[in-house]
């Protein structure tokens, strides 16, 4: 039996025979399909049988259990949870954009190809690089393309090399990507000001290094002032530089990865260019490259000649493909609309206010929490909950959960790995000073509670519909799908 408070599941609703769907009658002569009996399905899949009202109420109820940017402040560091403009949602659903099959001949989809072509121009300009592939479906997918490109570049020179360097503050996708592309991963430590330790870098640089993956500002939100020294050193060793664009919201119009010396850049359109995160995708991870890497880009690219846009598959050194078709076009349309809405000055204003907001919050919070690097941050900053852990036995996780009681989404926690009890806070430019002040007030209150009422923080959240989860149970007795009651193994009491 479902208990009060349990999250409902659609499988537990409805009744046999209900459906929320209607079809026209068959208007062609009925004919028994020629499928052999052994290739036919015997028992139908156990899908829900619900009416349209039940369907709508169920998913409306589920949506009410979610917290999104439209619900409230969502300072999830490194994820750039900015507001997603409504007009972009509407425009991406225009029938002339949403209802095109990917194999419609080029001459009949000139509008779609023009959007891809122009978005490529814009992203190339923002990156300071030559060309851009729109194919990757997400940031990590873009990283994969980037490292494949680096590999192809070295292979053409006779040796793919063996190692990819990543800083100790890197996102987990960087080493995972390098490994997927067949590279050994070597971690480079950070220096006292939070950037790469240049001396340590010099020690590991040799002709076995294919490239260095970096984000700048890095995951601490700090701009690496030695960036030119770093890119020069890697280039001198024959390596290439990969820019993880997760943090591009900090620098638009101020600095370009291409000008810093990077050869490959991926952008997260769902971070910097305001397309929705969708509860975990779909995003888009276009990859911009220098002229030297253009020959290796995935096929196809969109070219423009004689007044006509066309898909160009003729790239003899291409790495091939990383997905079907041309990219997450529906997402590209939203990013295109965003860039056109803001223009150059607007995008620079985005970075200005993202950085101002982050510094403002950092400034007011550093009296309550440890700040490992005391210098101006860019779009985000990292605090440490070390003080609360050591003095009050309150961990960063506890404070994150307590923030929910104050109506905020917690920041990213326990990342980056080189800061103990890390709290990574990224306010974004779309938040008002009033919201930031409320958030600062909530964090200050929690810091006081950690001293005065640690139990309250430790047991948080209190006001949300759900308390903390038994994650150990979920991992030890994996229950990854619903089954009818009679099929549930004995002893599994998850569903009441």
């Amino acid at each position, binding site marked *: 039996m479902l208990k009060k408070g349990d*999250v409902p599941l659609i499988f537990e609703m409805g009744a046999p025979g209900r459906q929320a769907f209607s079809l026209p009658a068959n208007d062609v002569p009925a004919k028994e399909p020629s499928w052999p009996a052994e290739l036919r399905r015997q028992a139908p899949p156990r899908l829900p049988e619900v009416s349209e009202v039940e369907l709508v109420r169920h998913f*409306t109820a589920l949506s009410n259990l979610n917290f999104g940017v439209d619900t409230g402040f969502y300072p999830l560091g490194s994820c750039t949870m900015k*507001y997603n403009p409504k007009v972009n949602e509407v425009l991406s659903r225009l029938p002339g954009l949403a209802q095109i099959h990917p194999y419609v001949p080029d001459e009949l989809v000139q509008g779609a190809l023009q959007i891809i072509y122009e978005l490529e121009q814009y992203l190339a300009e923002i990156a300071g690089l030559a060309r851009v592939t729109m194919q990757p479906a997400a940031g990590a997918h873009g990283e994969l393309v980037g490292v494949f490109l680096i590999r192809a570049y070295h292979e053409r020179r006779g040796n793919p090399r063996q190692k990819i360097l990543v800083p100790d503050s890197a996102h987990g996708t960087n080493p995972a990507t390098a490994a997927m592309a067949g590279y050994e991963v070597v971690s480079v430590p950070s220096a006292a000001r939070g950037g790469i330790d240049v001396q340590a870098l010099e020690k590991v640089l040799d002709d076995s290094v294919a490239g260095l993956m970096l984000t700048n500002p890095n995951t601490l939100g700090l701009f690496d002032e030695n960036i030119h020294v770093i890119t020069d050193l890697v280039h001198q060793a024959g390596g290439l530089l990969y820019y993880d664009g997760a943090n591009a919201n900090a620098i638009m119009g101020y600095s370009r990865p291409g000008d810093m010396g990077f050869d490959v850049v991926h952008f997260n359109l769902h971070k910097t260019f305001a397309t929705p995160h969708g509860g*975990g995708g779909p995003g888009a991870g276009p990859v911009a490259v220098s002229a030297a890497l253009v020959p290796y880009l995935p096929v196809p690219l969109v070219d423009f000649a004689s007044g006509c846009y066309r898909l160009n598959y003729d790239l003899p050194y291409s790495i091939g493909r990383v997905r*079907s078709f041309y990219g997450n076009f529906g997402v590209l349309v939203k990013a295109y609309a965003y860039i056109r809405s803001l223009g150059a000055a607007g995008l620079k204003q985005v970075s200005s206010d993202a950085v101002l907001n982050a510094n403002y919050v950092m400034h007011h919070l550093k009296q309550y929490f440890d700040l490992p690097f005391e210098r101006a941050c860019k779009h985000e900053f990292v605090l440490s909950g070390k003080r609360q852990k050591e003095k009050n036995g309150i961990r960063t996780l506890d404070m*994150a959960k307590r923030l929910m009681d104050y109506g905020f989404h917690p920041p990213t926690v326990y990342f980056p790995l080189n800061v103990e009890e890390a709290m990574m806070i990224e306010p974004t430019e779309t938040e008002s000073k009033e919201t930031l002040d409320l958030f600062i007030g909530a964090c200050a209150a929690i810091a006081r509670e950690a001293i005065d009422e640690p139990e309250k923080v430790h047991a948080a959240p209190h006001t949300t519909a*759900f308390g903390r*989860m038994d994650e150990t149970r979920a991992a030890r007795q994996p229950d990854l799908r619903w089954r009818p009651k009679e099929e549930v193994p004995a002893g599994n009491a998850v569903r009441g």
Partner: protein
Amino acid sequence: MVKYIPNTEADRQKMLADLGAASVAELFADIPAAVRLNRDLDLPPELSEMELAAHLGALAEKNAALTCFLGGGYYDHFIPAVVDALVGRSEFYTAYTPYQPEISQGTLAAIYEFQTMIAELTGLDVANASMYDGASALAEAAVIAVRKTGRTKVAVARSVHPEYRQVLATYLAPRQVELVELPHEDGSTVADLIGPQTAAVVVQQPNFFGCLEDVLQLERLAHAAGALFIVSVDPVSLAVLRPPGAYGADIATGEGQSLGLPMSFGGPGLGFMAARENLVRHLPGRMVGATNDTRGQRAFVLTLQAREQHIRREKATSNICSNHALCALAATVHLSALGPAGLSGVASLCAAKAAYTRDSLNAVPGFTAAFAAPFFKEFVVKSSYPWDKVKARLLEHKLVAGPELGRFYPELTGHFLVAVTEKRTRAEIDRLKAALEEVAAC
């Protein structure tokens, strides 16, 4: 100036005063002069919302509205209005990966429902929370087989979607894995190149030509060689065709665009992956599991994360982080709306209309159905006429079919695919026939 930025000049001054900074520029002072951009970005001027809507409206108008008989992995299926109405709730689409389960039960429960539906459709034990698309899902499945078996070859049927095979090749290239192509005869795969070094046998059902493969025989050959059997499937077909779990497949992947997602010029669609229980710790990406919260309420969390990049870094099963969660939600709503009867109704209508179309076109002089194998909603037409002539005539009737196969299979130049969904009416099918008759007549 920018309506998405609340800060006024007065707000900025107050904030700067707190910081003790004279200007925002000071906050960027640590960017060395050498890497600073000392000009404005060269971008078109900003547009108001009205101008933007007019501009994108005009671009959308430049794309032709056509009656679609195109196949090849994306299909013009009907999407009931409830799908967009529910997926358009911004509590879903403005959230991110549900790292904080206490305030993300909507996304988590929907993914658990999605995993269940994919497991049900494929007849397999478990499914993950989604992949980018059908092609990358298939490539990641092959990577699982290579890692699990330690073998050096992957046998892939030539009748698998050519773009999927390209993705497979790209993903496997750095691993020094040899891709062995299994040829086809009359549209069906011949599997005589499977050997003791084969990590996986990879086929598509129905295959790229629309033909049903003899998956039972292929499964026996794959497992006799100790390889994993991986099948890329059309989820709509699984309402009526035998599910991969019922013929011994180890992993099923596929493209879920047909489950409530607009074609959107090829994306975003939805990759899915389901597998046998023994592969669960090898799967890439997110998975959601049921548990209880501290108050004893049933709830859901991201689980088995020890496979993933944020924990395992270079030892992760994949680098995938964001997947296609919102598309998975759309598929979940879509499948809930249709139910077993609705999905089976769609599949049967597709099959009936495709059969009628094939018989109709087969009767036009110069056009024949290329392969005799049974098919589902898509088939190959062999044409005696140059493709440009066929294509142009179809366009005069606002029809589009294909793709033409010569671009992928030189031996099939001039052949083209025809896909027929439940949306195509008898009148449209008859118009397609009439257009081909005009090609034959002139």
